């Protein structure tokens, strides 16, 4: 029990701490680095949740690719550390924080209220899953989600074309200016 709780609380603390740093750091590059650490910790949480493949993909895709892109792009920009990281407006800021806080509170209350959401006892992590092997995911993916899989391939192609096209617009990254 303790063996499962301690890593969880350490990871949760790290995730929340770095998420907090992500949204409060005045320097965008620090934000990106903190976010990367958040992602890595989340990947380990996924590992712990019996989903090692997704955890690995999280590492490869999010931490290894997307966040690298973020950091790179931020390095392209001529960025001074923001004096004011947050947008202005006292009332709307209050409203934003209040609504977010309220949302968090209400989600937590909702989670706590609905203990019978799933018919599993709280300490039965992965009991329902008999050996979540990556092959099972693969079989499921190619048995039920083949169409979505192909469509995603198309989506990625479109995004690639779109990214190049956007970089070609005047003032864009590959424009002849």
């Amino acid at each position, binding site marked *: *029990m*303790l063996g*499962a*709780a301690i890593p969880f609380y350490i990871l949760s603390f790290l*995730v*929340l701490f770095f*998420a907090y740093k*992500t*949204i409060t750091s005045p320097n*965008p590059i620090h*934000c990106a680095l903190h*976010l990367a650490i958040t992602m890595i910790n*989340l990947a380990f949480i996924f590992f712990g*949740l019996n*989903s090692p493949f*997704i955890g690995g*993909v*999280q590492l490869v895709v*999010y931490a290894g*690719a*997307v966040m690298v*892109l*973020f950091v790179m*792009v931020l390095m*392209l*920009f*001529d*960025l001074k550390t923001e004096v*004011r*990281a947050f*947008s202005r407006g006292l009332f709307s*800021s209050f409203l*934003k924080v209040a*609504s*977010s806080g309220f*949302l968090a509170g209400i*989600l*937590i209350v909702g*989670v*706590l209220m609905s203990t019978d*959401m*799933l018919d599993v*006892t*709280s300490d*039965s992590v*992965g009991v*329902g*899953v008999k050996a979540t092997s990556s092959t*099972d*995911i693969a079989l499921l*993916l190619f048995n039920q*989600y083949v169409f*979505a899989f192909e469509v*995603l391939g198309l989506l*990625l192609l479109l995004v690639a074309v779109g*990214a190049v096209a*956007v*970089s070609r617009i005047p*003032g864009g*990254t590959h424009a002849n200016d």
Partner: protein
Amino acid sequence: MPMTEAFLNVGLNHYLILSALLFTMGMIGVLMRKNVIVILMGIELMLNAVNLSFISFSSYSGNLNGQIMVFFVMTIAAAEAAVGLALAVAIYKRYKEINIRFFEQLRG
């Protein structure tokens, strides 16, 4: 002590609450930050929170569909980040500006 019990007995609820908190943080980032790219990061944070929910449900109910869904969400999030950043860079190169409020001026 039931309270300690509840804290030490890590279960689905714990993950869901973590997910909720993470989501809220991402939301605050999206709502409050000025920098477009940080806003994109906030969105990534929110997506990750959702992924966490998916994975915990999937793990606790023994249903692999959640993991597939997370796989797809990651794909789409990456695509979204790619396009979003491409646009941000294009706009930055032209106007030297990445404040979200500036983007209001870009009405066609």
